[in-house]
């Protein structure tokens, strides 16, 4: 009967959760009958437990579930749009590749005519500038419309750009090999 106070206290908690075996419960009850300090603690702990028993439940706002579903729908629409964008980007790259092969055949022509190659170079620089402007615009748009998701979207864009670049290089190399053959 001289168990440390902390142990009895822990047993009381277990009893409140209905986690004691019948034998343990019997022993605890016996102790409470002969120890006023623990009996008081038991009453107080029962009070604490009772404070939370049958707690009041708050009903969620009526439109909560609908709002969740609307956010999910919006998200799905956005993702579908991004998928479509990725696919069209890929198609664009493939198209550019196909166009690049005859252009490479023209390279010998360009070497023989410096003025022509200069004009082509200038056109390429202009195209790169346009691409850069589009890129910046997309970043600003993403930041404006997406709030906290902006960095994720930018990261996705970066990954897509790197992937497109790497794919482009590989295809170019392969194309060069085919041309060289």
């Amino acid at each position, binding site marked *: 009967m001289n168990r440390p106070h902390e142990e009895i*206290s*822990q047993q009381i*908690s*277990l009893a*409140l*959760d209905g*986690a004691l075996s019948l034998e343990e419960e019997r022993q605890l009850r016996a102790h409470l009958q002969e120890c006023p300090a623990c009996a008081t603690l038991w*009453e*107080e*702990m*029962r*009070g*604490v*437990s*009772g*404070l*939370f*028993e*049958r*707690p*009041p*439940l*708050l*009903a*969620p*706002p009526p439109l*909560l*579930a609908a*709002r*969740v*579903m609307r*956010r*999910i*729908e919006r*998200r*799905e629409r956005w993702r579908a749009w991004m998928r479509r964008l990725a696919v069209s980007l890929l198609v664009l790259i493939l198209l550019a590749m196909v166009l690049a092969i005859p252009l490479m055949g023209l390279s010998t022509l360009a070497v023989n005519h410096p003025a022509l190659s200069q004009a082509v170079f200038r056109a390429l620089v202009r195209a790169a500038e346009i691409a850069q402007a589009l890129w910046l615009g997309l970043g600003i748009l993403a930041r404006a419309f997406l709030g906290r998701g902006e960095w994720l979207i930018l990261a996705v864009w970066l990954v897509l750009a790197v992937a497109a670049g790497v794919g482009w290089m590989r295809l170019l190399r392969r194309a060069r090999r085919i041309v060289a053959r």
Partner: protein
Amino acid sequence: MGGDQELVWVVKAQQGDQEAFARLVEAYQVPVYNLAYRMLGVATEAEDATQETFLRVYTRLKTYDPSRKFSSWILSIASHYCVDRLRRRRGAVSMEEVESWRWMADEGLAPEDKALQRERDRSIREVLATLPEPYRLVIILRYWHNLSYEEIAEITDSTESAVKSRLHRARQAVLEGLNHALEGQHPLEERKEEASLAQRGRALLQASLRRPRREPL
């Protein structure tokens, strides 16, 4: 809710069926919302937290392991979200009164007890606000969600024995808090117009001893 029916919805939702996911939201909005309300202490924040929780559930649906209990999985996502949110929170939040019509009907409650319920909610909110987060969480899962030690351990990423002692220390902390509040009341001190936590605490300790046990959430 039947476990089989639930699993059907989960599998359909995993395959991208939004209607099935809507069913899951309907089924779990009350437990998630009440967990968030009790963790955060503010109804408006709880609504936002509930939305964020379900968005996370949606995006992680493919990672759900059907051998786990779906309710435990959802509540674990909700708990983690609330704890993160509390960590990010700066400064104190103002307590706001909840309109009485928003309380869910309690079968055993007479209409005139509605005021009592509001009072009780305020006491509970004050008591929970004083508890450290890990204690608050186990109290909520044990009493609001009627979960076993095992389930609480699963949700809080801990062990059954850790849950046992945490729950015990949480109750001790509540008791100490109430006693401390009682002792701190000097007669010379200005009395607040509203009943203090300590005054209501004692009354609640008395009243709660006569209250029957509740049904699971």
